């Protein structure tokens, strides 16, 4: 059952991710991205991480992409404004760059996984793994410092964007 769902979710993820970069109309790219996050949330669920799955949908699917769509819809680009397709050379370069990036991810993962005993089942997880309590405990004890540092970083980003967007302070 898990395998079946995983296969379906991966196919959805793969196709939608492909659509994100191939669609010419940015609206469709954004829509595909939403679909992609949906598939990703399913995969997180399969990985016994329901909180992350939920956050994936709430934060990315529900909030950030809405803002993306907001901007795209307000610009409301028409066919002629989107400009011509870039040339083949540009595309080839893009493909090579994307491939290299993919390798950067795939190689360490393969190395790490094969170092252990391959893609085994997720049976050996501790009880309550991925639950809110677990995550909360981890964040506020073990990773309290990185967590707080990240929040300071985000705060700095917010203050910075407010500074930039205000005409006179």
């Amino acid at each position, binding site marked *: 059952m898990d395998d079946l769902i995983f296969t379906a979710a991966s196919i959805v993820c793969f196709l939608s991710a492909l659509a994100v970069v191939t669609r010419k109309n940015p609206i469709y790219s954004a*829509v595909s991205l939403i679909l992609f996050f949906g598939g990703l949330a399913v995969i997180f669920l399969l990985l016994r991480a*329901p*909180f992350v*799955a939920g956050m994936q*949908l*709430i934060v990315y*699917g529900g909030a950030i992409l809405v*803002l993306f769509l907001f901007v795209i819809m*307000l610009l409301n680009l028409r066919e002629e404004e989107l400009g011509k397709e870039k040339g083949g050379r540009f595309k080839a370069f893009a493909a090579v760059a994307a491939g290299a990036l993919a390798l950067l991810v795939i190689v360490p993962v393969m190395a790490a996984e094969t170092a252990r005993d391959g893609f085994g089942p997720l049976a050996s997880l501790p009880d309550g793994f991925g639950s809110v309590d677990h995550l909360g405990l981890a964040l506020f004890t073990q990773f309290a410092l990185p967590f707080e540092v990240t929040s300071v970083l985000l705060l700095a980003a917010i203050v910075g964007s407010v500074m930039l967007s205000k005409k006179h302070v």
Partner: protein
Amino acid sequence: MYAFLIPLLKIVVVMAGLFGAVPVLVYFERRIAAFIQDRLGPNRVGPMGLFQPLADAIKMIFKEDIVPDHVDRVLYVLAPVLAFVPPALAFAVIPFGHPIRLLGDRIDLAIAPAGMGVLFLLAVGSTSVYGIAFGGWASNNKFSLLGGLRSSAQMISYEIPLVLALVAVLMTAGTLDLGRIVAQQAEFHLGILPAWNLFHQPIAFLIFFIAAFAETNRLPFDLPECEPELIGGYHTEYSSMKFAMFMMGEYVAMISMSALLVTFFLGGWSFPGIDPTSTALLSGIASVVAFAAKVAAVLFVFMWVRWTLPRFRYDQLMNLGWKVLIPLALLNIMATGVVGVA
């Protein structure tokens, strides 16, 4: 086979109840609106106009389904579905009665009693904005677009106080399982006062209640479709069943929101006299009735408020959301934390 049949049966029953409630709601909305305005409302079709929703439905079905030339077809067709599905999905995790024992099996009266129910609700709820946003954009009409954009901005804005209000509730409940949240509320303080979260978290209740209006685009926050400014808003270009699906989506969202309100704050299916530990069929039915009655009461308040308050201006709406509700919700969380620690 049997294990597969029970959830299916639950789905069918719940969805049938949900969709069956929509025409009834439409009828009551019109009658209540009329009575509040000292009018009579629909009273021609059937006794007391009871078949009016049927006439409306038949009309909707037989209207010509127009897809204007200038629209983006894919999203135009997708939008009404997206407006309609998320609110309906929310009912997957809402417990509408206490567990019963039937033919020796324990049956939870919720389609999918999940431990992370609240998370699921929030995830699903956060996608409900897309139907309206897509509908507005795909119509390729400036009024629709503005309606869609307003709606998305409004829904994101009010989702924050909504979630923050819930956080306070979850802090007192200490769980994300909706069944357990309801079960906690079935107890009594001092033997008479039900332990509803309404009394534990009155401020959270108020914030959730206000945000619920904004999330369902109901008056006084129906800015995405406010007629004087935007004609019909995002559904200006829609007709026939597509329009009907937007309407149904709105009513289903209203029912879901009421159900959530009842579940989180008003004790869900619990009611004085119903033993929460019982698994008897009769007691189970009584709990379902109690749940439905509470939801109906909240729905009445929705309509009552609609015909009482004038529409907010958009800047007032945003001010209320960001400058009042969110800080209030944050303070509430802080207070809850302080009380909880103390």
